[in-house]
């Protein structure tokens, strides 16, 4: 589909008058070229990062895609979720807190083997103690206390942490597990941070 567009456009370019206003398709094409040509590789940030996955492309407009497309993306993303290999959902909330606070990793200044942070506080309120929290995502204050720890809630939370797009196709939240931002162990620590009654998320 995209390949077919290239030929007529190339021809059009030859005959194009300078003031010719580009059509929406032509602009889409130009934009794709721009997103390729305007970037360079630096450190671990390789150029292929500019290529879009299907769902990324579908979610790259001011408006959300149609419900059917959203549902399809969610179903596909749901399949990527890996459940804890040993059946244990919880790690250490103290480690979880460090991961929630750290926003480091995966930029062109970071090393490939560096441990990434979850950056949770960039977008969410979590504990009673940390006043510096973002509001892009909902407040998760007293997460476990308010929601309980039913199997359903625990599984939902694990899944959301692993791949938020399985529940909301165009979610702002990264696919922590699926995109290998965080390890399984790190996600366990975050689970403990959210659910442990001793965690400052739940205990004042």
């Amino acid at each position: 589909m995209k390949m077919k567009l290239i030929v007529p456009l190339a021809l059009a370019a030859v005959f194009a008058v300078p003031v010719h206003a580009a059509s929406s398709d032509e602009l889409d094409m130009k934009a794709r070229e721009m997103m390729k040509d305007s970037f360079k590789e630096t450190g671990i940030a390789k150029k292929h990062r500019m290529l879009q996955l299907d769902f990324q492309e579908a979610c790259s407009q001011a408006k959300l895609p149609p419900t059917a497309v959203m549902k399809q993306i969610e179903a596909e993303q749901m399949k990527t979720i890996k459940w804890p290999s040993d059946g244990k959902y919880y790690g250490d909330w103290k480690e979880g807190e460090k991961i929630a606070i750290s926003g480091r990793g995966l930029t062109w200044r970071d090393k490939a083997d560096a441990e990434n942070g979850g950056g949770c506080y960039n977008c969410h309120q979590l504990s009673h103690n940390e006043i510096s929290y973002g509001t892009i995502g909902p407040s998760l204050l007293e997460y476990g206390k308010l929601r309980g720890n039913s199997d359903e809630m625990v599984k939902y939370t694990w899944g959301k942490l692993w791949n938020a797009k399985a529940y909301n196709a165009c979610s702002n939240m990264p696919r922590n597990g699926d995109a290998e931002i965080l390890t399984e162990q790190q996600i366990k620590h975050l689970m403990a941070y959210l659910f442990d009654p001793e965690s400052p998320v739940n205990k004042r």
Partner: protein
Amino acid sequence: MNNQRRATLKAGGGLGMLGLLAAAGLIKPELAEAAWNKGAFDAKTLDAAMSAMGAGKPMESADVQISAPDIAENGAVVPVGVVSNLPNTEQISIMIEKNPNMLAASFDIPAGTLPDVQTRVKMGQTSDVYAVVKADGKFYMAKKEIKVTLGGCGG
């Protein structure tokens, strides 16, 4: 020239260069005469810094006022102002308890200058900030907690 100055010169601290510069006429003599209180600036505890300043244990005074935010958006730049309503205020110092070197700045206030200074300091973490004022030869202080927050995307 006070004792502190002499001791520092003997110890051959950071002031050697200053002396040389002054001798070479590169800096104005009055600048070289001011004594950088190495002992106080290098002190690792509040008590040590206070004693190097000759302040001992200053008493808290409502006449010393700190103007500073309750929360700093960034610890790299924290505005701190100190006003003293004590008569004959000679010196105002700003100390940050949890910094590795707690003494940040010290101002000598000659007659005719108002005991009212403002500057900006770095803070590594949430800490009490002290204003220490020398007036009529005696030391007084005030303190205020300033919260330092983490900010930005953190990457």
